């Protein structure tokens, strides 16, 4: 059907897929380069799947302003929404009822000169800077497939709109648009659906370590006055995770008694009954956190996967006609828990390479390789290379990881050129292996499940309501699942882990007379991508729903 419809087409010089920090920094940098050199203005288009820019943006977040300083030197005058400068850093190792404070704050955790931000607000502001340059940002348009000429990327087709849940066009059917570009910059975020396709087709990860991911779950709270000083940053390790699990919690305090509370769980856990949302609830119940938020009000909820693998897992980020930036490529420092500045810088460097390629009339991989050269000479490599093995070391357990992180820090990363890691989801064990054969009791629900009190802890469905998520109900399910695997293999072996790793109650097992059936509540989806990553049989594929759908992360 879709091959015969007449499509709108648009030709631009540079197309940027994804309006996050990486994509918008690329757009802004392109227009700056253009101004500096003069000549014909470039046509630049930015695609963003959210209804408005920033709506799908969620991060901790503590911003290292190094890249922002270069991109928008007068960011303070332009009133960049930086909620609070960081005044205090605390790191704790949590035990079930207590805490050990680290006597010194290790350098990667020192946040002097950094700012606590709402990434949603920050990206909205960044998009205003981009639009002020006359660049078109098309929000509500998702990149659905990559367009090729042979093996050269020539642009992107956006998703069709107005398809009903049976796959039939409605009266208001609007076919996707083919946007052709000399250079396409993929900034489609962590586990981006288009970048994933490119990686497979062109083996961009060949010779690299497999990517590892984590999931971050966060709430915005308003707490009673006087609980925590604005500008305070708290990071925790230990409880509620055990030593085989990677992750930790954070509390960031902003003015007006607003606090971000969040928990990051590595998506390389072993226990098939582990649930990251439960870990987050447990974290909130710990006296350290509870003492801050109890009696307050939860305002928003969100969840997002993050690429934790580091330097050695970054795929080849250039190909004929295209570049990959930001989280899509994995530019994140899991040791410092920061990636926004790296995303921005990668976007800026990609802009540099794309600008040169467009002007030279040559967007071949050979020319766009300059992007990689620029990265290697930039603060990105300087920051990521020394800690390249940290996440992989944590794969050997908390103690090994912690020791390695310490050594890497002190020695600036001389040890091991490359430590091998595993794709995170490969570590999950079957019920038989993790429980039955070791004589362990399989828990009834998720491991350490918490009965929500609706004061401090919540169930997933309540949380989803606070994420502002909305999708047009009359559209095809955007989670493509080979459901035949669910009951025959995955259920018996792993006890339907999708119910637990999804933080938004999208996957629900309904017991019927004939057996168990997977029900997909697609309209709950907060676009975190965890299912696409974590499902043990890799039978879930996340594709973008109709443009404009998804969470509304105001203030997150």
């Amino acid at each position, binding site marked *: 059907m879709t091959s015969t419809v007449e499509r*709108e087409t648009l030709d631009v010089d540079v197309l940027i897929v994804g309006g996050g920090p990486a994509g918008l920094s690329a757009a802004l940098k392109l227009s700056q380069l253009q101004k500096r050199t003069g000549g014909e203005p470039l046509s630049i288009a930015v695609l963003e799947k959210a209804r408005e820019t920033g709506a799908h943006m969620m991060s901790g977040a503590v911003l290292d302003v190094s890249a922002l300083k270069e991109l928008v030197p007068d960011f303070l005058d332009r009133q960049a929404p930086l909620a609070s400068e960081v005044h205090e850093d605390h790191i704790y190792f949590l035990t079930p009822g207590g805490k050990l404070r680290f006597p010194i704050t290790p350098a990667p955790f020192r946040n002097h000169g950094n700012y606590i931000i709402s990434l949603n607000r920050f990206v909205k502001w960044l998009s205003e800077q981009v639009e002020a340059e006359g660049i*078109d940002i098309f929000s509500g348009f998702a990149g659905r497939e990559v367009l090729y000429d042979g093996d050269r990327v020539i642009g992107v087709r956006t998703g069709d709109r*107005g398809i009903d849940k049976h796959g039939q066009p409605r009266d208001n059917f609007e076919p996707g*648009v083919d946007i052709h570009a000399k250079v396409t910059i993929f900034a489609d975020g962590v586990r981006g659906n288009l970048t994933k396709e490119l990686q497979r087709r062109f083996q961009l990860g060949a010779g690299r370590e497999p990517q590892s991911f984590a999931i971050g779950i966060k709430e915005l709270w308003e707490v009673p006055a006087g609980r925590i000083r604005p500008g305070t940053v708290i990071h925790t390790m230990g409880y509620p995770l055990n030593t085989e699990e990677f992750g930790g919690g954070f509390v960031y305090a902003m003015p007006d008694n607003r606090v971000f509370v969040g928990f990051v769980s590595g998506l390389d856990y072993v226990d098939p009954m582990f649930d990251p949302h439960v870990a987050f609830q447990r974290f909130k119940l710990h006296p350290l956190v509870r003492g801050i938020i109890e009696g307050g009000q939860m305002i*928003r909820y969100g969840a997002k996967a993050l690429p934790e693998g580091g330097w050695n897992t970054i795929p080849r980020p250039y190909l004929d006609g295209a570049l990959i930036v930001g989280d899509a490529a994995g530019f994140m420092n899991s040791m410092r828990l920061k990636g926004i500045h790296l995303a921005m810088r990668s976007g800026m460097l990609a802009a540099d390479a794309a600008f040169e390629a467009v002007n030279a009339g040559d967007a071949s991989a050979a020319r766009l390789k300059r992007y990689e050269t620029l990265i290697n000479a930039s603060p990105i490599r300087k920051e990521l290379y020394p800690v390249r093995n940290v996440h992989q070391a944590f794969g050997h357990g908390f103690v090994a990881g912690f020791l390695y992180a310490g050594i890497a820090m002190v020695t600036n990363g001389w040890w091991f050129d490359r430590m091998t890691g595993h794709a995170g989801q490969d570590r999950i064990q079957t019920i038989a292996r993790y429980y039955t054969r070791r004589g362990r009791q399989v828990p009834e629900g998720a491991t350490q499940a918490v009965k929500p009190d609706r004061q401090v802890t919540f169930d997933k469905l309540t949380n989803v309501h606070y994420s*502002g998520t*909305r999708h047009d109900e009359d559209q095809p399910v955007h989670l493509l699942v080979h459901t035949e695997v669910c009951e025959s293999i995955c259920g018996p072996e792993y006890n339907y882990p999708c119910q637990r790793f999804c933080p938004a109650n999208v996957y629900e097992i309904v017991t019927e007379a004939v057996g168990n059936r997977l029900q997909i509540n697609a309209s709950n989806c907060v676009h975190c991508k965890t299912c696409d990553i974590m499902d043990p049989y890799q039978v879930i594929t996340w594709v973008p729903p109709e443009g404009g759908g998804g969470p509304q992360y*105001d203030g997150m």
Partner: protein
Amino acid sequence: MKIAVCIKQVPTREWQPRLNDTKTWIRDQDASYEMNEPDAYALEEGLRLKEKHGGEVVVCSAGPARAAQVLREALARGADRAIHVEDEQIGAADAFVVTEALAAAMREEQFDLVLTGLQSDDQGFAQTGVILAERLGMPHATIIMEVQAADGRLRVKRELEGGWFQWIAMSLPAVLTIQSGINQLRYATLKGIMAAKKKEIRKVAAPAGLSARQRILKLDFPEKGKKTQMIAGGPEEAARELVRRLREEARAL
């Protein structure tokens, strides 16, 4: 036909609102905003009438600076130009104030047809269209399910209670308040979004001396009363007791 469509920017529905300190409105710093859905149907109807009969569609909104977002969205969908009566206080104002602000800017335009949504998703008074008609000196009809225009006259279908409809013939100019679901909303296209940038949004100051006719004394969330009654005893006995309570106490049977 020169058509005006009045559009309000309202807080999104997929959100848990919180009250402000005086409990008279929601805390707007937490809110995200969108086009009032009934107004989106009014816009679509306006665009369809223009496509059929020619003319222009002018979208009008009274609200703070942020309301420009819904006007831009309407321009991207195909409206020709926009009028924004900009005033920071007008976001949560009553229909009396909103219509005075709108009418002052709209009067000189001499519209043939003015469309509004039936009601707003935030306050839901369903009064803006009605009071605006009075101020503009035009006849009006409400809860419109279908619009037929010919020879300077209208035939409109109104929704009544209990599955009944009413057809009304009226002359132009007129004001209609449009019921949601009357049509299927179109999407903004890329070309539409690009074209919208070049379209005019005329900013107008609100007339001086606007004063509210109504004041919200207090907002409350509906109380969630959990009144589960447990019925003891064996199945037969419990069933009998259940029927008794349903009949005598709940009066549901």
